[in-house]
């Protein structure tokens, strides 16, 4: 199917997943829309050159509701999510796979919009789509569109690992927390915040490259992208892995005023909410200022801030310190009841 073969009334039908002619036409549309970011040769597997001795691999599925939002869509999230997972372990993201589950009735125009987002975001991140798969399900068996991306990156430096973090290391956030969650919840329910608070969804490999280029290797100990479970989940993960207390100064947490307003209304703590374009970096004290300067020089890190440090206390807790210096334990949630944010 080339793009001239469908009009605004075209939609996904079961036969688009049958493997017959309509499937081939759909694949043609996908390949044509992805353009130069698609590297596939239409073989059963992609065959790719890899240099260096070690690769990073990751996979993620995406069921975000709604799949189309103010400043992005599920396609953008699907590229960013996997690119960011590759980047935070210190690898250079190179290749992505693209799996799609499409519900019968999905307008073709919507599919093209998602593919266009994938193409533009992949271009920005410098990655190629190397193979893909499409399945079509009956009406009601999925919610419009689900995606899966797996990714491969190569290491041009030593991998970043949680085990490299030391007591005294600074905890730095690359940007505000909570915006992605507020934006999506506001669109779902029509809460009125969706134009003031936008999703932070972004590919962050370029931001990290900027940081790596400004400090000696080893100064950035470990990095996580702050996604499901929010900052709280990341901090607990490190405290548990390190066996040390991580202390955060509550007042330093970067939260957009409208986001705080919405979270207060919804009774949600931003520290537990999902993001799609925020990094938590654990950094040697000697490199703190240079890392902050590097982050702030990039458009995705211009509100970077130090929020706390890893303490020498051998107790795997996360402590929040308020303005008066009082400390309280940040509990890990058993569940957040905020499904389908990515």
């Amino acid at each position, binding site marked *: 199917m080339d793009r001239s073969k469908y009009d605004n009334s075209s939609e996904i039908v079961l036969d688009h997943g049958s493997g017959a002619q309509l499937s081939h036409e759909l694949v043609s549309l996908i390949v044509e829309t992805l353009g130069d970011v698609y590297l596939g040769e239409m073989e059963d597997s992609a065959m790719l050159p890899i240099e260096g001795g070690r690769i990073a691999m990751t996979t993620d599925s995406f069921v975000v509701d709604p799949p189309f939002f103010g400043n992005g869509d599920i396609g953008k999230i699907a590229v960013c999510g996997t690119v960011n997972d590759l980047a935070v372990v210190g690898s250079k993201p190179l290749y992505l796979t693209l799996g799609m589950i499409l519900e019968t009735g999905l307008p073709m125009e919507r599919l093209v919009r998602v593919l266009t987002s994938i193409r533009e975001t992949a271009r920005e991140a410098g990655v190629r789509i190397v193979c893909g798969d499409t399945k079509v399900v009956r009406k009601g068996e999925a919610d419009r569109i689900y995606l899966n991306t797996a990714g491969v990156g190569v290491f041009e430096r030593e991998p970043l690992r949680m085990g490299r973090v030391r007591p005294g290391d600074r905890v730095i956030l690359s940007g505000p927390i909570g915006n992605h969650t507020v934006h999506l919840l506001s669109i779902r329910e029509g809460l*009125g915040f969706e134009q003031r608070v936008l999703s932070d969804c972004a590919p962050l490999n370029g931001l990290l490259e900027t940081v790596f280029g400004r400090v000696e290797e080893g100064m950035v100990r470990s990095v996580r992208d702050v996604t499901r479970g929010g900052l709280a989940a990341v901090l607990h993960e490190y405290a548990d892995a390190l066996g040390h207390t991580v202390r955060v100064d509550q007042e330093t947490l970067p939260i957009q005023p409208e986001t705080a307003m919405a979270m207060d209304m919804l009774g949600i703590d931003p520290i537990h909410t999902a993001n799609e374009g925020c990094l938590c970096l654990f950094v040697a004290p000697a490199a703190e200022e240079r890392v902050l300067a590097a982050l702030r020089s990039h458009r995705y890190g211009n509100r970077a801030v130090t929020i706390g440090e890893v303490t020498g206390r051998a107790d795997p807790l996360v402590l929040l310190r308020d303005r008066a210096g009082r400390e309280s334990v940040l509990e890990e949630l058993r569940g957040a009841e905020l499904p389908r944010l990515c």
Partner: protein
Amino acid sequence: MGKIAVLTNDLQSDVVDKTPERTAAIAEARPRFLGFLAEMRRRGHGIYHLQLVNLPDDPNVEREPDGTLPLQRGSRGAAIIEDFLDPSDTVVEKNKDSGFYETELHDRLQNDGVDTVLVTGLQTQICVQTTAADAFFRGYNVWVPSDCVVSGNPEDRDRALEWLGGYCATVASSDEILAALDQHGELARKVVKILP
């Protein structure tokens, strides 16, 4: 000086009679609420009823236990309750919590020269709160008559009023609002410091 408009939220039997607590709460507020609307009409201020209509293809709509979709367009349960509706009033359909979300409300208010909105109705902690916040973000001077907002749970109402007063609206009783209008001829805009 712009005009003042009263916005009501969800004065519809499918919403009001969803629980006995809501029915009782609206019955308790009804005399003052109706009196306030009548007085505002008498003074020449517009009344805009935000009518919640559920769309069949909205996956986030809360359905009845038997799967029935409440608040369907044209249904009796979705109609604005007669007592609250005057022929001079305007009805604006909405499909989400905020009365501004993908509706014609903002355009209509702008066309009518409105710069101050008084947000009323139910529930305080959902539609009143979100409509007020949305109005604030759009630059309106927002007031909330505390005795013309309703929640099934009074604690939810009180918490929402505290939030509204803290962030984006002036909260006052309907008598205080009328007195302020008598005294100043307008309602002063709250100075809000939380936004840059």
